[in-house]
């Protein structure tokens, strides 16, 4: 998987230009995979490269780099502010977001995207978290739900900067207003590096889009019974994300284009691995 920008690691004859335009000169791909390893419900710490086995389209790869905690985070909150969150749910949502911001480190950045029928970038990625807090205070619920458009915007915005990208999409309903089509947005997510966590409130409709989006990016879907549980959900996601591993490898022995199926294993009994299911290379 390639990265636009400074993290694009190119082997062999790769050239990283000073400008932010990526240049790819060979078919050898630098791939980065964000992985969560758990034992039961708890993340497993202290793993090294030798503990992982990564297969790219079935071909075993040599994992060259494992890093987890040191890279700063880019957290993009994409929040449903349609009419249905009016009242208490909005207070809970705002409270959960503030609690998450409280737990960010100095180097971390946050952005706020909201969506009703209209997607709005309330605050672009910034280290000045007070700006994000102020933007949160000004949210006014209104209109219908464009969760697909909102998720797309968050994925694209998150796919652009240094650091590890975490997108949290909250929605309490199903999409009623998006222009973009579900499959196109899932396709975009496959092509990006972001890890998406979906958070939804249990109801009549199953949040299939959020489930698929979060699973294919290696994140997860949390279904809460009530918006009261949002704070625990948001904070839990951040904690979990900090305990993840970032694997790098140079893809060898595989086609330079198309869909690459990924399989990540950990050589320890009883552990579960969550990672994106694959990536799109080439073009």
């Amino acid at each position: 998987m390639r990265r636009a920008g400074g993290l694009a690691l190119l082997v062999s004859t790769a050239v990283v230009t000073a400008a932010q335009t990526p240049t790819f000169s060979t078919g050898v791909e630098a791939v980065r995979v964000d992985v969560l390893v758990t034992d039961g419900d708890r993340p497993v710490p202290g793993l090294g490269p030798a503990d992982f086995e990564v297969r790219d389209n079935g071909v075993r790869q040599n994992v060259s780099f494992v890093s987890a905690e040191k890279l700063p985070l880019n957290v993009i909150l994409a929040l449903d502010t349609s009419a249905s969150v009016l009242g208490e749910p909005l207070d809970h949502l705002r409270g959960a977001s503030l609690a998450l911001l409280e737990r960010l480190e100095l180097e971390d950045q946050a952005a706020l995207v909201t969506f009703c029928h209209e997607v709005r970038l309330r605050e672009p990625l910034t280290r000045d978290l007070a700006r994000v807090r102020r933007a949160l205070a000004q949210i006014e619920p209104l209109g219908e739900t464009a969760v697909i458009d909102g998720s797309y915007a968050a994925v694209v915005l998150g796919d652009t900067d240094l650091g590890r990208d975490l997108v949290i999409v909250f929605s309490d309903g199903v999409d009623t207003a998006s222009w973009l089509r579900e499959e196109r947005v899932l396709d975009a997510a496959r092509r990006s590096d972001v890890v998406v966590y979906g958070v939804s409130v249990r109801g009549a409709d199953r949040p299939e889009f959020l489930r698929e989006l979060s699973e294919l990016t290696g994140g997860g879907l949390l279904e809460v019974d009530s918006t009261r549980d949002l704070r625990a959900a948001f904070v839990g996601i951040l904690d979990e994300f900090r305990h993840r591993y970032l694997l790098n490898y140079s893809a060898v022995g595989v086609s330079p284009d198309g869909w690459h199926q990924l399989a990540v294993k950990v050589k320890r009994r009883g552990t579960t691995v969550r990672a994106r299911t694959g990536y799109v290379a080439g073009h």
Partner: protein
Amino acid sequence: MALFVGAVQAQEPVRPASSPPARPPQTAVFPSEVDYVEVDAFVTDPRGNVVHGLTRDDFLLFEEGIRQEIAAFAEVAVPAERVRATPIEAAPPPRDTATNEEAVQGRIYAIVLDELHTDAQRSGAVRTLAREFIAKHMAEGDVAAVVFTGGGTHAAQTFTGDKRLLQEAVGRFTGRKLPSATLERLRAIEFQRNLLANEPRPEGAPPPPENRLAPRPGLERDPHDAARASAARASMESLESVARGFAGVQGRRKAILFFSEGIDYDTLDVMGAVQRSASVVRSSMREAIATAARSSVAVYSIDPRGPVGPIGSEVLPMTSPAEAAAFGIDSRSLGQELRLSRDSLRRLAEETGGIAVVDTNDYATAYERIVRASSQYYLLGFYPLESKRDGAFRRIAVRVERAGLTVLAREGYVRPRAQPDEKETPGLAAAAETSPELRALLDNPWPQPGLALGVTAAAFKGSGRDASVVVTIQLSGPGVPVEPQPDRPADEIELSLVAIDRQGRVRGGERLLARPSAESHEHVERSGLRFVRSLQLPPGRYQLRVAAREAPQGRRGSVAYDLEVPDYGDQELAMSGVLLASRTAALTPTPALDDVVMPMLRTPPTAARRFEPGDVVTAYAEVYDAREPAHETAIATRVTSLDGREVFRTTRLWSSSELEQSGAYRHEVDIALTDVSPGQYLLQIAARPTLGEATVSRELSFEVVPVAVAADSAPATAAPARRWDARRPTSRIDRLEAWLAAVESHEPGTADGPAYMVRSWTADELQELATDVAVVVRLIGDPQSSVMWLVDPTLRGRPQRAPYSVDDERRFRALAREAAERGPGARNRLLKRGAVLHTDAAIRVGMGYAQPRGAAEPRSDRWQVRFSDGQQQGAEQAPGHWELARALLDNVQPDPMRDETVRLWYLATSAFGQHYEQHTRQEDRAVELFPGDANLLLLAGSFHETFASPRMQSLARSIRLPSGVSHGIGAEQSELREAEKLLRRALEAQPALVEARIRLGRVLYRLGRHEAAARELQQAVAALSSGGSKAADDDGLLRYYAEMFLGAARESLGRNDSARVSYARAAALYPDAPSPRLALSQLAFRGNDRAAALDAVQRALRPEASRPDRDDPWWRYHVVQGRRVDAWFDELHRSLAVEP
């Protein structure tokens, strides 16, 4: 947004059919003489159904066996429909005003919770039972109080219509019944025996024999006799006190709900063998019953134990049966206690005309019966032959001279005493010099109709701990008597206000006199009078009672308002109440305006919650923010319709440096009601500091009423269209006559008095009206046709006897003759104007208009579902104006299918339904009647396309309706196929109708037929680029859709470059619209051009473009097809004008 649904097909017209006989008038005159006795009689048939239509002659009334003449008689039917819990309950909008408008309809309940006779373990059951009654069986206009028997005679919650307060009071209930007498006696015996067994005795002496414990006086008695008797007396005195409080209420049905396990005191134990206070308890019970009977209040006793015996903690094994028997205790003793307690409950109910809910678990049915008995009954009044004042109990009996009917009525009354009853409740210490008439009104917490009053109150931070409560009181114009005489000023108005705390103490009040000048009388008559006062009150809960009286006719009225005064001293962040003022309301004369209010608003606050479009409403609230350090606070003001549509929003960011000395932000917002359509709205003011997470907010509701109506009526809280309401018909033929007058007077396209009048009619009344109009219409065409026989076209069979009298027939013929005098077009004119009248009633009077109480059995087949964001918000039964309008038009001659007015009606109403998302499903019927009309076909196709949209499909999944009622939203694919068929027909009828082609393209795309979709859309784009259609395009709106949909179709076909061109063209047409930018971004991302993808997203989302007025036609694609609704309505109204 609303969707009308039903078990029957929506397009099926209401057909004239025979109806049940009209009910007698529901008015009665209530004499107030001391010697007049009133009896409520509840009559049921053998199956328990309420019997209607009895007359005075059907009743026999006896006092001590001697038949009495019935001097006053009325069948009272307070409609029960709003009492019943609907399967889907929606929270009512928050009201911050109280009026006495609907007072005459409501019931008055006292919920007496007998702490002293409820086992602690069953406290929860009692709370649940009482709460269920409050939640599901109390209706609008009803008031109730909660009284605890253990708390003296103080009400835990005084009379209020606020269910939340009642529920809170019930939550404080805990039972503390004494242990069973039988068990206590057993314990005493056991204790004595143990004492004896352990008595010191000489060494070696044998233990005492078992039978040494001989019966002796102390052990035969109930150890808690005194406490038990005192508890029984206390409970009965509570009941008596509540019943006495009801004495002054005439003409309204009142009931006591007595939740108790009954008095387990043996009142027949005159010898005092076990319990010594039998006579005292018996007499207190008799006194309670007598007082209830005298006040004509029925006691409904409700036993929370259900059908099982005294279980739980009370069942203990009898360790020594033989010994116990010696004391008169055996296995039946506990059963005897149960029987006693149940008997007491039965007696209380039966002798006061109530029902005992004893030995049953079916409380729901019992509650329904209680409400029915409180809603539908006969009121009989008589003057006793003897008018002695000796306090004697007089036995009365009510019978009906028809076999099989059961009468429930009180069994007696107590004659008044010569001396006033010394137990008479002392009146409230009302404000000094208040007249006795007003004092009497202020003593009662239930609103008294008469002089129309509205009141609202808002608490502000005051000095010290006390809050300043601003009370605004408004008298409606037409109710205020101002008839100036040349030699004297207009008449005097007396007004008194008191604030009563939870303990019933008066904590503040004032008496005011107003004498409007002769010059101002017209002004006062039009706008009413307003008083704005302030009271300094410590934190707590209060009931404000306001009573007013006008001098010449002595008319009076009163109203009660519940208010919570917060403790502003101990909160870091708090908000005051909200005051509203408006430009129109500023004109109301205000003889008394308090100084406290002066700095708050430019014009005095108003108690009115109805405003005209175009008026400017000012909302004022104070936010108290004591948080540190310096920070900002966002105060947002929003106005939304009940279905969540926002019509106003503004947010102001305050800096803590702007705080007043009092620590308050004085937040004032002007809300212009320009372009706000009639209906009910919610106003919310919310404050959020950037520090921490706390928010505070206040909400209230108000209504926007059409100008035509508002000008016609009082600006205060009085109902609009008073003049037409005054004509509210009392019989079926009167209603028909009123309807004919309304049809003539109604100005099409307005919500005028006639529209409000018919909107106030219930579904059953409209159903009857449909039959009656059909008769008149037939008579206009054929004056000789029969009136007395009706044929229901939906039922095969013989004609049925019509529910009309001979006099009705004569009036029918006269009305028809009068209508026919307008000439040959009279018949069609009546039908068409009638249809438009009901259309205006349905759409212009507004969704928020409170439907009045209807007949006892609400129609169950028509529902309207409110929804927002694809989720159901609520559902209520639809009144049936649409069906009636359709039924009227179906009778247009020679053929509705060839009638231009009918066509325009379908066009305008279909467009209305789709444009405002009030889906009434006219479309299918419209294309049945006009199968070749391209515009109707386009609307019908769009309708099905909209039903296939994610928002409607999501609604279909979330919708909850009573069984048997279907929502009629088909599966996505089948709705799309139906849409395709209709849109193709529209194009066959009019190939140049480019909007139909665009929609067809979109539908084909959604059906997965991308190639066909692209073809249609390309054709549409080409047509729009050519001369004729280009002119028809509204500012490039259709072109935008065509390009966007074409882009999507091309993308699906893998033609990304041409897709990009389409999206770019759409973006050029609407540069602010985000959807084309998102589409372009997504194309770029797929093409791996991340920079372009990001750039397009940033342009789509750029904050400066996110103004509230930002427009993307995609957001309104589902309603845009109805955008010509106004033009079509204009055409419809013009076509009516050319009718003869």
